[in-house]
Protein backbone atom coordinates (compact mmCIF):
# COMPACT_ATOMS: atom_id res chain seq x y z
CA UNK A 1 0.00 0.00 0.00
CA UNK A 2 2.65 2.43 1.04
CA UNK A 3 4.85 1.47 -1.90
CA UNK A 4 1.94 2.07 -4.26
CA UNK A 5 1.54 5.58 -2.90
CA UNK A 6 5.25 6.32 -3.32
CA UNK A 7 5.17 5.01 -6.88
CA UNK A 8 2.12 7.14 -7.68
CA UNK A 9 3.86 10.19 -6.23
CA UNK A 10 6.92 9.51 -8.36
CA UNK A 11 4.87 9.16 -11.53
CA UNK A 12 2.90 12.32 -10.76
CA UNK A 13 6.09 14.26 -10.11
CA UNK A 14 7.65 13.07 -13.37
CA UNK A 15 4.52 13.96 -15.37
CA UNK A 16 4.36 17.40 -13.76
CA UNK A 17 8.04 18.10 -14.37
CA UNK A 18 7.80 16.86 -17.97
CA UNK A 19 4.90 19.23 -18.63
CA UNK A 20 6.85 22.07 -17.05
CA UNK A 21 9.91 21.24 -19.13
CA UNK A 22 7.85 21.14 -22.31
CA UNK A 23 6.30 24.50 -21.46
CA UNK A 24 9.70 26.08 -20.84
CA UNK A 25 10.95 24.61 -24.13
CA UNK A 26 7.94 26.10 -25.92
CA UNK A 27 8.62 29.48 -24.32
CA UNK A 28 12.31 29.39 -25.22
CA UNK A 29 11.63 28.57 -28.89
CA UNK A 30 8.55 30.76 -29.27
CA UNK A 31 8.70 33.12 -32.24
CA UNK A 32 5.87 35.53 -31.51
CA UNK A 33 6.33 39.26 -31.67
CA UNK A 34 7.85 40.82 -28.60
CA UNK A 35 10.87 40.15 -26.43
CA UNK A 36 11.56 36.46 -26.06
CA UNK A 37 13.27 34.73 -23.17
CA UNK A 38 16.26 33.78 -25.30
CA UNK A 39 16.76 37.12 -27.05
CA UNK A 40 19.90 39.02 -26.30
CA UNK A 41 19.45 42.16 -24.28
CA UNK A 42 17.25 44.16 -26.61
CA UNK A 43 15.43 46.48 -24.24
CA UNK A 44 16.71 50.02 -24.09
CA UNK A 45 17.45 51.57 -20.73
CA UNK A 46 18.58 48.44 -18.96
CA UNK A 47 19.35 49.29 -15.36
CA UNK A 48 22.78 47.69 -15.62
CA UNK A 49 24.02 50.09 -18.34
CA UNK A 50 23.66 53.06 -16.03
CA UNK A 51 25.31 51.15 -13.18
CA UNK A 52 28.30 50.26 -15.37
CA UNK A 53 28.67 53.78 -16.67
CA UNK A 54 28.11 55.22 -13.19
CA UNK A 55 25.75 57.86 -14.55
CA UNK A 56 22.56 57.21 -12.62
CA UNK A 57 22.34 60.74 -11.23
CA UNK A 58 23.51 62.61 -14.31
CA UNK A 59 23.03 60.92 -17.66
CA UNK A 60 25.93 62.70 -19.38
CA UNK A 61 28.60 62.30 -16.73
CA UNK A 62 31.83 60.47 -17.54
CA UNK A 63 34.44 59.00 -15.26
CA UNK A 64 38.05 57.91 -15.47
CA UNK A 65 40.31 55.44 -13.69
CA UNK A 66 41.67 57.16 -10.60
CA UNK A 67 39.10 59.93 -10.87
CA UNK A 68 35.87 60.67 -9.09
CA UNK A 69 32.44 59.28 -9.86
CA UNK A 70 29.04 59.10 -8.22
CA UNK A 71 30.01 55.78 -6.71
CA UNK A 72 33.73 55.21 -6.57
CA UNK A 73 33.78 51.45 -5.96
CA UNK A 74 35.91 49.76 -8.60
CA UNK A 75 34.04 46.48 -8.16
CA UNK A 76 30.71 47.17 -9.82
CA UNK A 77 28.98 44.18 -8.22
CA UNK A 78 29.86 45.72 -4.86
CA UNK A 79 28.63 49.08 -6.08
CA UNK A 80 25.25 47.54 -6.93
CA UNK A 81 25.09 45.46 -3.77
CA UNK A 82 26.29 47.98 -1.21
CA UNK A 83 25.34 51.31 -2.70
CA UNK A 84 22.62 51.29 -5.36
CA UNK A 85 20.74 48.47 -3.67
CA UNK A 86 22.04 48.87 -0.11
CA UNK A 87 18.55 48.48 1.35
CA UNK A 88 18.39 44.89 0.06
CA UNK A 89 21.75 44.08 1.60
CA UNK A 90 20.83 45.38 5.03
CA UNK A 91 17.64 43.32 4.92
CA UNK A 92 19.73 40.29 3.99
CA UNK A 93 21.60 40.80 7.26
CA UNK A 94 18.23 40.69 9.02
CA UNK A 95 17.35 37.45 7.20
CA UNK A 96 20.46 35.81 8.63
CA UNK A 97 19.75 37.33 12.05
CA UNK A 98 16.20 36.00 12.27
CA UNK A 99 16.99 32.55 10.92
CA UNK A 100 19.94 32.03 13.24
CA UNK A 101 17.83 33.22 16.16
CA UNK A 102 15.10 30.80 15.11
CA UNK A 103 17.72 28.06 14.92
CA UNK A 104 18.83 28.75 18.48
CA UNK A 105 15.20 28.91 19.57
CA UNK A 106 14.11 25.51 18.26
CA UNK A 107 17.28 23.53 18.98
CA UNK A 108 16.82 21.15 21.92
CA UNK A 109 18.72 22.25 24.98
CA UNK A 110 21.09 19.42 25.75
CA UNK A 111 24.50 20.33 24.38
CA UNK A 112 27.61 18.23 24.04
CA UNK A 113 30.91 19.12 25.60
CA UNK A 114 33.60 20.30 23.27
CA UNK A 115 35.93 17.33 22.86
CA UNK A 116 39.65 17.54 23.16
CA UNK A 117 41.06 16.79 19.73
CA UNK A 118 44.37 15.61 18.39
CA UNK A 119 47.58 17.33 19.43
CA UNK A 120 48.38 18.19 15.82
CA UNK A 121 45.31 20.35 15.24
CA UNK A 122 45.74 21.91 18.67
CA UNK A 123 49.32 22.96 17.95
CA UNK A 124 48.54 24.36 14.54
CA UNK A 125 45.39 26.14 15.74
CA UNK A 126 46.87 29.64 16.30
CA UNK A 127 48.46 29.68 12.85
CA UNK A 128 45.31 28.45 11.14
CA UNK A 129 43.15 30.96 12.96
CA UNK A 130 45.43 33.88 12.23
CA UNK A 131 45.52 32.91 8.58
CA UNK A 132 41.73 32.77 8.36
CA UNK A 133 41.27 36.05 10.18
CA UNK A 134 43.79 37.70 7.83
CA UNK A 135 42.06 36.39 4.71
CA UNK A 136 38.67 37.46 6.04
CA UNK A 137 39.97 40.86 7.04
CA UNK A 138 41.55 41.44 3.66
CA UNK A 139 38.28 40.53 1.98
CA UNK A 140 36.01 42.96 3.74
CA UNK A 141 38.49 45.83 3.63
CA UNK A 142 39.07 45.35 -0.09
CA UNK A 143 35.48 44.44 -0.96
CA UNK A 144 35.03 47.53 -3.12
CA UNK A 145 38.17 46.81 -5.18
CA UNK A 146 38.41 43.06 -5.57
CA UNK A 147 36.00 40.12 -5.43
CA UNK A 148 34.82 39.22 -1.96
CA UNK A 149 32.95 41.46 0.38
CA UNK A 150 31.27 41.28 3.74
CA UNK A 151 29.39 38.00 3.51
CA UNK A 152 32.15 35.59 2.44
CA UNK A 153 34.55 37.47 4.73
CA UNK A 154 32.22 36.91 7.67
CA UNK A 155 31.87 33.25 6.70
CA UNK A 156 35.64 32.76 6.58
CA UNK A 157 36.16 34.50 9.93
CA UNK A 158 33.51 32.28 11.47
CA UNK A 159 35.38 29.24 10.15
CA UNK A 160 38.25 30.28 12.41
CA UNK A 161 35.91 29.87 15.37
CA UNK A 162 34.74 26.50 13.97
CA UNK A 163 38.32 25.26 13.68
CA UNK A 164 38.85 26.35 17.26
CA UNK A 165 35.86 24.30 18.38
CA UNK A 166 37.06 21.26 16.43
CA UNK A 167 40.44 21.61 18.15
CA UNK A 168 38.76 21.62 21.53
CA UNK A 169 38.87 25.29 22.40
CA UNK A 170 36.03 27.74 22.75
CA UNK A 171 37.60 31.03 21.75
CA UNK A 172 34.59 33.33 22.26
CA UNK A 173 31.61 33.20 24.57
CA UNK A 174 27.98 33.32 23.54
CA UNK A 175 27.53 36.62 25.28
CA UNK A 176 30.33 38.32 23.34
CA UNK A 177 28.84 37.07 20.10
CA UNK A 178 25.44 38.44 21.03
CA UNK A 179 26.93 41.84 21.81
CA UNK A 180 28.92 41.94 18.55
CA UNK A 181 25.80 40.97 16.65
CA UNK A 182 23.59 43.62 18.22
CA UNK A 183 26.17 46.40 18.06
CA UNK A 184 26.95 45.72 14.39
CA UNK A 185 23.26 45.49 13.53
CA UNK A 186 22.35 48.68 15.32
CA UNK A 187 25.33 50.46 13.72
CA UNK A 188 24.22 49.52 10.20
CA UNK A 189 20.78 50.99 10.73
CA UNK A 190 22.18 53.98 12.61
CA UNK A 191 24.34 54.77 9.58
CA UNK A 192 21.20 54.53 7.44
CA UNK A 193 19.39 56.94 9.73
CA UNK A 194 22.42 59.24 9.82
CA UNK A 195 22.06 59.56 6.06
CA UNK A 196 18.50 60.74 6.60
CA UNK A 197 19.63 63.32 9.15
CA UNK A 198 22.52 64.62 7.03
CA UNK A 199 21.28 64.29 3.46
CA UNK A 200 17.54 63.70 3.81
CA UNK A 201 17.42 60.16 2.48
CA UNK A 202 17.82 56.81 4.21
CA UNK A 203 20.63 54.43 3.23
CA UNK A 204 22.48 57.17 1.38
CA UNK A 205 26.24 56.95 0.90
CA UNK A 206 27.00 60.25 2.60
CA UNK A 207 30.78 60.05 2.88
CA UNK A 208 33.07 61.71 0.35
CA UNK A 209 33.75 59.04 -2.29
CA UNK A 210 37.47 59.37 -3.06
CA UNK A 211 39.09 58.16 -6.25
CA UNK A 212 38.28 54.93 -8.06
CA UNK A 213 40.89 52.31 -7.26
CA UNK A 214 42.10 53.73 -3.94
CA UNK A 215 41.80 51.70 -0.76
CA UNK A 216 40.07 54.61 0.92
CA UNK A 217 37.35 55.15 -1.62
CA UNK A 218 33.70 54.30 -2.13
CA UNK A 219 32.60 56.24 0.94
CA UNK A 220 30.61 54.13 3.36
CA UNK A 221 31.06 50.79 1.60
CA UNK A 222 34.20 49.58 3.48
CA UNK A 223 32.67 50.58 6.81
CA UNK A 224 29.41 48.81 6.01
CA UNK A 225 31.24 45.72 4.82
CA UNK A 226 33.26 45.64 8.05
CA UNK A 227 30.06 45.76 10.08
CA UNK A 228 28.42 43.12 7.88
CA UNK A 229 31.46 40.84 8.19
CA UNK A 230 31.47 41.09 11.99
CA UNK A 231 27.76 40.50 12.19
CA UNK A 232 27.78 37.52 9.82
CA UNK A 233 30.74 35.93 11.57
CA UNK A 234 29.13 36.41 14.99
CA UNK A 235 25.90 34.83 13.79
CA UNK A 236 27.52 31.84 12.10
CA UNK A 237 29.82 31.24 15.08
CA UNK A 238 26.70 31.31 17.22
CA UNK A 239 25.30 28.47 15.10
CA UNK A 240 28.40 26.33 15.69
CA UNK A 241 28.44 27.04 19.39
CA UNK A 242 24.76 26.08 19.67
CA UNK A 243 25.79 22.51 18.88
CA UNK A 244 28.16 22.35 21.82
CA UNK A 245 28.02 23.06 25.49
CA UNK A 246 28.32 26.81 25.73
CA UNK A 247 28.50 29.25 28.58
CA UNK A 248 25.63 29.39 31.05
CA UNK A 249 24.90 33.05 30.65
CA UNK A 250 22.88 33.07 27.46
CA UNK A 251 20.10 30.64 28.19
CA UNK A 252 17.98 32.19 30.89
CA UNK A 253 16.98 35.46 29.23
Amino acid sequence: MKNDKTLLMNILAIVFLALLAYFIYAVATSSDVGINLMDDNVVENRVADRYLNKNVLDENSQYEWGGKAEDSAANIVTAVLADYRLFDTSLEVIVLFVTVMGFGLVLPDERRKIKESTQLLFNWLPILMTFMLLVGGYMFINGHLSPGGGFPAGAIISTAILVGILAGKQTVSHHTLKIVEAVAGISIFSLATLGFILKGSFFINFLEGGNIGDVFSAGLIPILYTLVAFKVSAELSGVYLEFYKGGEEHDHA
Partner: protein
Amino acid sequence: MMILLASVLSILMIVAAVWVLITPNILKAIIVFAIVSLVASVLFIFMHAPDVAITEASIGAGITSAIFILSYKRISE
Protein backbone atom coordinates in the same frame (compact mmCIF):
# COMPACT_ATOMS: atom_id res chain seq x y z
CA MET B 1 38.68 24.01 -24.94
CA MET B 2 36.80 26.06 -22.36
CA ILE B 3 33.55 24.69 -23.75
CA LEU B 4 34.77 21.14 -23.28
CA LEU B 5 35.81 21.84 -19.69
CA ALA B 6 32.52 23.57 -18.94
CA SER B 7 30.47 20.70 -20.33
CA VAL B 8 32.48 18.09 -18.42
CA LEU B 9 32.00 20.06 -15.20
CA SER B 10 28.27 20.51 -15.87
CA ILE B 11 27.82 16.79 -16.45
CA LEU B 12 29.77 16.06 -13.27
CA MET B 13 27.55 18.48 -11.37
CA ILE B 14 24.33 16.95 -12.70
CA VAL B 15 25.51 13.40 -11.97
CA ALA B 16 26.43 14.46 -8.43
CA ALA B 17 23.02 16.07 -7.97
CA VAL B 18 21.26 12.87 -9.04
CA TRP B 19 23.54 10.93 -6.71
CA VAL B 20 22.48 13.15 -3.80
CA LEU B 21 18.88 12.10 -4.40
CA ILE B 22 19.38 8.36 -4.87
CA THR B 23 21.99 7.46 -2.29
CA PRO B 24 20.41 6.02 0.88
CA ASN B 25 23.33 7.17 3.03
CA ILE B 26 22.60 10.69 4.29
CA LEU B 27 26.21 11.53 5.19
CA LYS B 28 27.32 10.55 1.71
CA ALA B 29 24.54 12.69 0.23
CA ILE B 30 25.73 15.70 2.20
CA ILE B 31 29.32 15.29 1.02
CA VAL B 32 28.24 14.81 -2.58
CA PHE B 33 26.12 17.94 -2.26
CA ALA B 34 29.27 19.85 -1.27
CA ILE B 35 30.75 18.66 -4.58
CA VAL B 36 27.73 20.09 -6.45
CA SER B 37 28.30 23.45 -4.77
CA LEU B 38 32.02 23.44 -5.47
CA VAL B 39 31.53 22.64 -9.16
CA ALA B 40 28.90 25.38 -9.31
CA SER B 41 31.40 27.85 -7.91
CA VAL B 42 33.90 26.87 -10.63
CA LEU B 43 31.15 27.46 -13.21
CA PHE B 44 30.59 30.91 -11.71
CA ILE B 45 34.21 31.74 -12.48
CA PHE B 46 33.59 30.64 -16.07
CA MET B 47 30.68 33.07 -16.17
CA HIS B 48 32.96 35.95 -15.11
CA ALA B 49 31.39 36.20 -11.66
CA PRO B 50 34.26 35.93 -9.16
CA ASP B 51 32.26 37.56 -6.36
CA VAL B 52 29.56 34.92 -6.61
CA ALA B 53 32.16 32.18 -6.93
CA ILE B 54 33.87 33.15 -3.67
CA THR B 55 30.57 33.46 -1.84
CA GLU B 56 29.26 30.16 -3.21
CA ALA B 57 32.48 28.35 -2.29
CA SER B 58 32.64 29.71 1.26
CA ILE B 59 28.95 29.88 2.14
CA GLY B 60 27.26 27.44 -0.24
CA ALA B 61 29.84 24.68 -0.10
CA GLY B 62 31.66 25.35 3.18
CA ILE B 63 29.28 26.63 5.83
CA THR B 64 26.12 24.92 4.53
CA SER B 65 27.81 21.51 4.47
CA ALA B 66 29.34 22.12 7.89
CA ILE B 67 25.93 22.90 9.38
CA PHE B 68 24.42 19.88 7.62
CA ILE B 69 27.09 17.55 9.00
CA LEU B 70 26.91 18.98 12.54
CA SER B 71 23.12 18.62 12.52
CA TYR B 72 23.26 15.12 11.10
CA LYS B 73 25.74 14.05 13.77
CA ARG B 74 23.43 15.51 16.37
CA ILE B 75 20.47 13.56 14.97
CA SER B 76 22.27 10.25 14.55
CA GLU B 77 23.48 10.17 18.12
